[in-house]
């Protein structure tokens, strides 16, 4: 059976490639360099918990929070901003997504242009666009709505164009074979299949917009975010915490509604 006098050579363990070793070394060096540049301070990790700042979060002044001008009105404005920007952003995203998908694009030029433009738009953080718009248009809900419109557009285009890419191409072939022009063929052959996803994404983006409004306040774009920013400058973290709790409560409710609506669609 077993002949222990091994006549076949044992394979040699492959040497780790010098190149991977080199890459690892470079990455490690870069990491240390970066850590120094960001003033990596390990002591912060436990300092954080003992910092007196936490006392500024408590107690939450609910009487201040539950007032019309501090919470109710800004929330209404945030809602309106979210609705408007979701609507406009998602509407604009529909044709752009079709232009960006190799399945449904009418020609190569449009494909190239739309893909490049969208990649450039997405390369800049949304808040940069927001700040730019606020400077251009002025502080307030209008700028906030435009910023979130661009945000909604970017997110929808990313999600939806991937869905269109993965759609069943066969009904589109059938539409083309009956002699239809490009637009009617896409509308009849592709849209019905991807439309439920489109609506589901819109609901999701609406949720995102409400959350984003919190952050938009930092650039002065209206809604509840503006209240948060004002309070931040006064270090009234207790009020901010109260507002945040309300907001996330609302976001949670909307999320539940949205999830159940989305289930119905599929």
């Amino acid at each position, binding site marked *: 059976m077993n002949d222990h006098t091994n006549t076949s050579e044992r394979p040699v363990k492959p040497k780790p490639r010098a190149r991977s070793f080199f890459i690892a070394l470079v990455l490690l060096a870069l990491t240390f360099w970066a850590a120094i540049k960001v003033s990596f301070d390990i002591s912060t990790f436990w300092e954080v918990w003992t910092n007196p700042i936490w006392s500024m979060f408590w107690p939450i002044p609910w009487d201040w929070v539950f007032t019309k001008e501090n919470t109710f009105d800004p929330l209404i404005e945030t809602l309106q901003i979210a609705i408007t920007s979701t609507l406009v952003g998602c509407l604009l995203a529909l044709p752009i997504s079709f232009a960006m998908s190799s399945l449904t694009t009418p020609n190569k030029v449009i494909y190239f242009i739309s893909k490049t433009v969208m990649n450039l738009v997405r390369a800049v953080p949304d808040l940069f666009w927001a700040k730019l718009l606020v400077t251009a248009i002025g502080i307030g809900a209008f700028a906030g709505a435009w910023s979130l419109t661009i945000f909604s557009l970017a997110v929808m285009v990313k999600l939806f164009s991937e869905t269109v890419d993965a759609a069943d191409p*066969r009904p589109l072939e*059938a*539409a083309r*074979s*009956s002699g*239809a022009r490009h637009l*009617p063929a896409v509308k009849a*052959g592709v849209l*019905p299949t991807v439309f439920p996803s489109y609506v589901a994404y819109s609901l999701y983006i609406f949720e995102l917009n409400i959350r984003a409004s919190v952050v938009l306040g930092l650039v002065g774009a209206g809604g509840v975010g503006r209240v948060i920013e004002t309070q931040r400058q006064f270090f009234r973290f207790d009020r901010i915490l109260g507002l945040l709790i309300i907001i996330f409560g609302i976001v949670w409710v909307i999320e539940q509604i949205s999830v159940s609506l989305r289930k119905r669609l599929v």
Partner: protein
Amino acid sequence: MIKIERVSVTYPGGVEALRNVDIEIDDGEFVVIVGLSGAGKSTLLRVLNGLVPATSGSILVDGTEVVNANSQTLRQVRSKTGMIFQTFNLVNRTTVLNNVLMGRLASVPSWRSTLGLWPSEDKEAAMLALERVGIIDKTYVRASNLSGGQQQRVGIARALAQEPSLMLADEPVAALDPVTSRQVMGDLQKINRELGITTLVNLHFLDLAKEYGKRLIGLRDGVLVYDGDISDVNDETFREIYGRAITSEDLHAMNEEPQQSIGNGK
């Protein structure tokens, strides 16, 4: 009247799907095309309505040159050519009626079909087509709720709604059970006789070909190896087309699972 002259098709990857094929088909003929998978059957059908561009040669469909035709000419040819697919190519999420209306896409202005505002004569044409294939009762049923045979009928109705002069059926029964296959083949035959529409059908199994076909075209590796009356087919012919001796399994669709090849390279 279809005239195919020295037509060759080479796909971008280098695959030669058709080589120097010459065929002439008169109006109102019922032609069955057989051959192995990859023999060029699908390519032959698709080159007639320009879904696949011919690399060389000439194709005249009712006097119009299809090879290297511009998109407008192709659309005109396609609007008069109905196509039926092995996988039905229906829009699953929408109603039977909307699927059949896809056949009318070429004859209504783009804005009307995109908005869903079909003129009454087009709706009437769709209803008539549904009545002709006998599933008018399923008009408002979601396409995915139908059986395979019913779905293929919707496909036939869609093609009929175009009021075509040519009908191309690419393995219309490959995904159906033997009994339903015979019904669909019977429908195609009846349409050919009653409405005088020139019909070309790709088939896998010889028994169906013999039962329903009159003229048989055999392809092998892109080359035309048989073109004649179906009753003249003997073992020798079979060997020409399939490259081997006939077996009982080739004759009877009963024994085999339906083929699921989505013909991309044919």
